[in-house]
């Protein structure tokens, strides 16, 4: 039974690491708009500068590859280990180890910014705005987002009522297990809705002098995001409903874990499909880009964190990875970052505490076998 838990962790970690490597560490420097979060410049491809650029890309890519391979090998080893407290601790450590891939990215970003200074590439302060498309390009259909999340809410209410004994059902799981599981999924739903709205309201990119091209490009990008988040919401809601039914009526841990496995695979497939669509849109519109875009590299700390006090926007598109991030200079951005930092620190503290006391959850709902 326990191998399923290992498989779930493996599916969560390995593809994510490979995806981060593939997106952030391309070997096609010069063919992409960004290299390590720094906007590509023709001066990078002249004489000595090109040698330096290639050396930086090669070195950072190699380091990232080493981290990726190490994480993958460690995951393969853990996959075949019995699920014990130690194994679970190691999986949790591996989740954080996976984030180390950001280190070579940050290093590459710093080196390329230094190269820019050496080459005397001055910051361009040009901001393009398409008057025709300002705030009129949206792809999110709110109803399709709210229906699955409302379903998740109803399932959570049902779980609470069952646990409180108001709805009488022949329970096969521990008391309040349903409520805690449902609330955790409802928490995801509560996060998804504002993220979806935020992504649908991101600033439109101006890539061309032609407003129609800009409109189509931004609509396509927002559609990918909307589809991804709506699909995730549906997966979340359907999983929650199915899981509640299974927990109530099926007396089998393996079925529960298999359910989580299927859910993980579905989420993974949704993310991969979204990333592939996004990539395809970028390459489709690459040839239509006829404007020198704003050089705001200095506002990107290590190419990952956006800090621009002169920008009133809260959300911007990420430069490392896939999706959006917040402007840390914005008051709401500061609050979000503080919450994230607290979550990260408390997770690390929890791992240390759990490893030292042996209180590691195995991720299953404890079934009462009657």
């Amino acid at each position, binding site marked *: 039974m326990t191998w399923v838990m290992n498989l779930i962790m493996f599916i969560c970690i390995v593809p994510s690491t490979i995806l981060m490597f593939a997106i952030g560490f391309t070997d096609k420097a010069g063919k992409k708009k960004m290299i390590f979060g720094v906007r590509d410049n023709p001066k990078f491809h002249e004489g000595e500068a090109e040698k330096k650029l290639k050396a930086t890309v090669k070195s950072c890519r190699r380091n990232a590859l080493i981290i990726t391979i190490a994480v993958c090998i460690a995951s393969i080893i853990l996959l075949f280990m019995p699920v014990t407290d130690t194994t679970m601790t190691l999986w949790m450590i591996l989740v954080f180890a996976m984030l180390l891939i950001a280190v070579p990215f940050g290093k590459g970003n710093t080196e390329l910014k230094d190269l820019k200074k050496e080459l005397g590439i001055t910051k361009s302060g040009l901001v393009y*705005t398409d008057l025709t498309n300002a705030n009129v390009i949206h792809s999110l259909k709110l109803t399709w987002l709210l229906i699955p999340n409302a379903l998740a809410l109803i399932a959570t209410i049902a779980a609470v009522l069952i646990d409180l004994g108001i709805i009488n059902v022949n329970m096969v799981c521990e008391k309040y297990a349903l409520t805690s599981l449902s609330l955790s999924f409802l928490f995801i739903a509560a996060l998804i809705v504002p993220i979806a709205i935020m992504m649908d309201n991101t600033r439109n990119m101006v890539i061309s002098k032609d407003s129609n091209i800009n409109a189509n490009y931004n609509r396509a990008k927002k559609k990918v995001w909307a589809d991804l988040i709506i699909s995730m919401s549906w997966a979340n809601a359907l999983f929650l409903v199915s899981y509640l039914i299974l927990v109530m009526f099926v007396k089998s841990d393996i079925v529960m874990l298999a359910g989580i496995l299927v859910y993980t695979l579905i989420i993974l497939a949704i993310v991969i499909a979204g990333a592939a669509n996004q990539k395809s849109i970028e390459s489709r519109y690459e040839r239509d880009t006829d404007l020198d875009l704003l050089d705001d590299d200095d506002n990107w700390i290590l190419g990952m964190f956006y800090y621009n006090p002169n920008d009133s926007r809260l959300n911007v598109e990420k430069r490392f990875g896939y999706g959006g991030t917040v402007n840390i200079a914005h008051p709401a951005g500061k609050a979000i970052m503080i919450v994230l930092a607290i979550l990260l620190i408390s997770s690390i503290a929890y791992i240390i505490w759990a490893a030292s006391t042996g209180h590691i959850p195995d991720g299953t709902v404890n079934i009462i076998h009657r």
Partner: protein
Amino acid sequence: MIIKIDEYSDLPIYMQIRNQIVMGISSGELKGGEQLPTVRALALEIGINTMTVSKTYQLLKSEGYIMTDRKNGARVRPDISKSGEISEGNKSELKRIVSEARLSGVSKEQLKELIDEFY
């Protein structure tokens, strides 16, 4: 219509937006009656304060290029008054440009060619 804002320009941002909207109306890119984005939408798109955009719209309205109302937002005026005269401010600006061009060795013909191109 694409507008270009130079963050390092000496010209204030509200004037840059104002100038480009005027040029857009003059060139026909923005047609009479065409809807302009709301103050908030435009401010979000450029990433500037709403007060800056509001100042631009107020200026354009006072100059008679756009009309605003609470229901329809801002629109380009379909009947911009044609006085047939260059304002004193523009005359003074033109004088400065001609003087600088002359000092730079630009001939009168070259200037006329430019005027023909931009008109």
